[in-house]
C-alpha cells in the first residue's frame, strides 16, 4: 500500500508514461528553507527536560566516582550501591520497630490530613478576605504575624498546648500549609477583573452566585499554585514535626538514623521524601491541566 502511494506521489512521470503522454520533468525538490521566528526572551516553553536529565546523570556519576575512589569516608557519603542495599534492607526488615510502609503511612497520614484541613479552611477564608473588608482587617493581623515564623519556632508551643501526639504534629503542618493557600486565594480575588463581576451582575447573579460561579473559579489558578507551594512547605515541616517524640514517620527515621551516624539510612529517607514531594507536585500539575485548561490562554 505504502509503495503504491509513494510511486504515485514521487514519480508522476511514470504514471504519465502509462498513458502515453510525454514524460513531465520530475518535480524539483523545494530548496530547503530557513524558517525563522521572532527573537524571544527567557525560556518561553522551550523544553529543558534533556538538560535536566544530563545534569542528574552527571551528579549521580560524580557521587559514584567520589565513593568509588575513596575521596570521602563512607561515614559522610555512602556509595550509591550502599544506599540501594540499605533501602532493600529497610524494605525487608523495617527500621526501629516499624516497617517502611508504616513509616511512610505515618508521614503521609499526617501531611494529607493537614493538607485537607488547610485547603478546606484556607480557600473560603482567603476568598472571604479578598471580598470583605472586616474579614480582611480582622484576619490579616494574626496571619501576617504567624506566617513568616519558621514552624520549628512554634513547635514547642504546639507540644505544650496539644501534647506530643498526632494533634500537635497535624496542627503544626496545618498552620504551615494554611498561609500560602489563604494568601493565594486573596491574590486570585485581587486579580479578578471588575468587568467580569459587572457582567455577571447585569446577568442577574446573586451575591452567592457571584461567589460560586465567578469569584471561586477565577481564583482557582492562583489557589492551585498556592496548594503546590503549601505542599512543598508541608514536606519541609514534616521532618521538624516528626523530630519530637515520634516513633513512626520518614522524618523520625532520618533523625534517628542521624543520631546513629547511619548515613545510608538518612539518604534512603531523603530520597523517599524527595519522591513523595515530587509526586505530590506532579499530582497538582495534573490537577491544574484538568481544572484550569484555560490558564495562560485568554
Amino acid at each position, binding site marked *: 500500500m505504502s509503495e503504491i502511494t509513494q510511486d504515485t506521489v514521487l514519480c508522476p512521470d511514470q504514471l504519465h508514461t502509462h498513458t502515453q503522454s510525454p514524460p513531465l520533468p520530475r518535480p524539483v525538490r523545494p530548496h530547503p528553507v530557513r524558517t525563522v521566528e521572532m527573537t524571544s526572551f527567557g525560556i518561553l516553553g522551550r523544553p529543558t527536560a534533556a538538560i535536566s536529565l544530563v545534569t542528574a546523570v552527571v551528579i549521580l556519576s560524580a557521587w559514584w566516582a567520589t565513593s568509588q575512589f575513596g575521596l570521602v569516608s563512607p561515614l559522610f557519603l555512602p556509595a550509591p550501591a550502599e544506599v540501594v542495599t540499605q533501602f532493600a534492607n529497610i524494605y525487608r526488615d523495617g527500621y526501629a520497630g516499624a516497617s517502611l510502609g508504616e513509616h511512610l503511612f505515618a508521614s503521609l497520614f499526617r501531611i494529607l490530613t493537614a493538607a485537607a484541613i488547610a485547603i478546606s479552611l484556607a480557600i473560603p477564608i482567603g476568598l472571604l478576605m479578598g471580598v470583605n473588608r472586616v474579614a480582611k482587617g480582622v484576619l490579616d493581623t494574626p496571619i501576617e504575624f504567624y506566617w513568616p515564623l519558621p514552624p520549628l519556632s512554634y513547635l514547642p508551643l504546639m507540644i505544650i498546648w496539644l501534647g506530643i501526639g498526632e494533634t500537635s504534629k497535624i496542627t503544626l503542618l496545618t498552620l504551615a500549609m494554611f498561609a500560602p493557600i489563604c494568601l493565594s486565594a486573596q491574590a486570585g480575588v485581587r486579580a479578578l477583573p471588575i468587568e467580569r463581576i459587572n457582567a455577571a451582575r447585569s446577568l442577574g447573579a446573586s451575591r452567592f452566585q457571584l461567589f460560586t460561579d465567578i469569584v471561586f*473559579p477565577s481564583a482557582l489558578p492562583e489557589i492551585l499554585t498556592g496548594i503546590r507551594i503549601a505542599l512543598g512547605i508541608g514536606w519541609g515541616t514534616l521532618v521538624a514535626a516528626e523530630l519530637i517524640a515520634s516513633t513512626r514517620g520518614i522524618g523520625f527515621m532520618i533523625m534517628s538514623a542521624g543520631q546513629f551516624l547511619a548515613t545510608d539510612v538518612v539518604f534512603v529517607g531523603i530520597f523517599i521524601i524527595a519522591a513523595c514531594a515530587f509526586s505530590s507536585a506532579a499530582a497538582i500539575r495534573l490537577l491544574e491541566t484538568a481544572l484550569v485548561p484555560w490558564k495562560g490562554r485568554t
Partner: protein
Amino acid sequence: MLSVDQASVYFATRDGRTVQALDRVSFDIPDSGFVVALGASGCGKSTILNAIAGFLPLSEGTITLNGRPVSGPGADRGVVFQKDTLLPWKTIADNVGLGLKFARVSRLERLDRVEELLRLVGLADFAAAYPYELSGGMRQRVGIARALATEPEILLMDEPFGALDSLTREQMQELLVSVWTRTGKRIFFITHSIEEALFLGTHVLVMSPRPGRIVGRFDPPFMRQFAKSGDARAVKTAPEFAELREEIRAMLHATDTVRRDAA
C-alpha cells in the same frame, strides 16, 4: 421606555478636587429605539452607560426604566462590554446560558434558548468551543447572545466593536442591525466613530467633554435604509450620509476643548 433625566455625575480626584463627568444629561430611549452616544474619550458616554447599567450611582438626576427608577445592576438591562468578559472555563453555550442559570432556568430549557441565540449571531457550530478558541469578533457575538439570553428590556453596548479590525467591525455592525430588526430590542450604543453612529443609530446623541454633555441630536434614516435594502456600501457612500458625517465632524471639532485651549 428608558428615561434619563437631568443626570449629573461628579467624581472626586485623588488630590481632593471634584471633576464633573456628566452635566445634566437628558434623553429617552423609546421602544425599539437604537440610541447611539457619540463623542471623543472623556465626553461621559461610558459614564452614562455605567449609570444606566447600575454600576455607577448618579450624583444628581434620575434614570427610570418603564417608570421604575434604576438602582443597581439587573438582568433587565443586558450589557455588552468593549473587552469581552466571557468566562474562560465555560463553553460558548454555557457562557450564553449564564444569565439563565442565574435565573435558575433548567438546563434543558437553557439549551433550547442558547441554540436559538447562537443561530441568531451565526455561531450555531461553536456551542461546544471555549472562548480562547474564538476570534475577537466571534467572542463579541457570543457577548451579544449572552446579553440577549435573559430577555432584557434594553441592550447596553459599551464600544463593543472598538477593539475589532475595520472589516470585522463592518460585519458586526450589519449583524447587529439584523439582530435589532429581528428582536426589536431597545439598544443604547456607545462609539467614537461618527460613521458607526450614523450607520447604526435611529437616534444619535453627539456628546462633548469637560463636562460631558449632549451638544447635538440627530435622527438619521440610514439604518432603516440598510435594513430594507441590505446594501451597506450604498448607504454609507450616499451624499446625505457624507453630508451629515461632515456636519457632526464639524460639531465635534468646534467643541474640542484641546484644540480650543491650544489656539
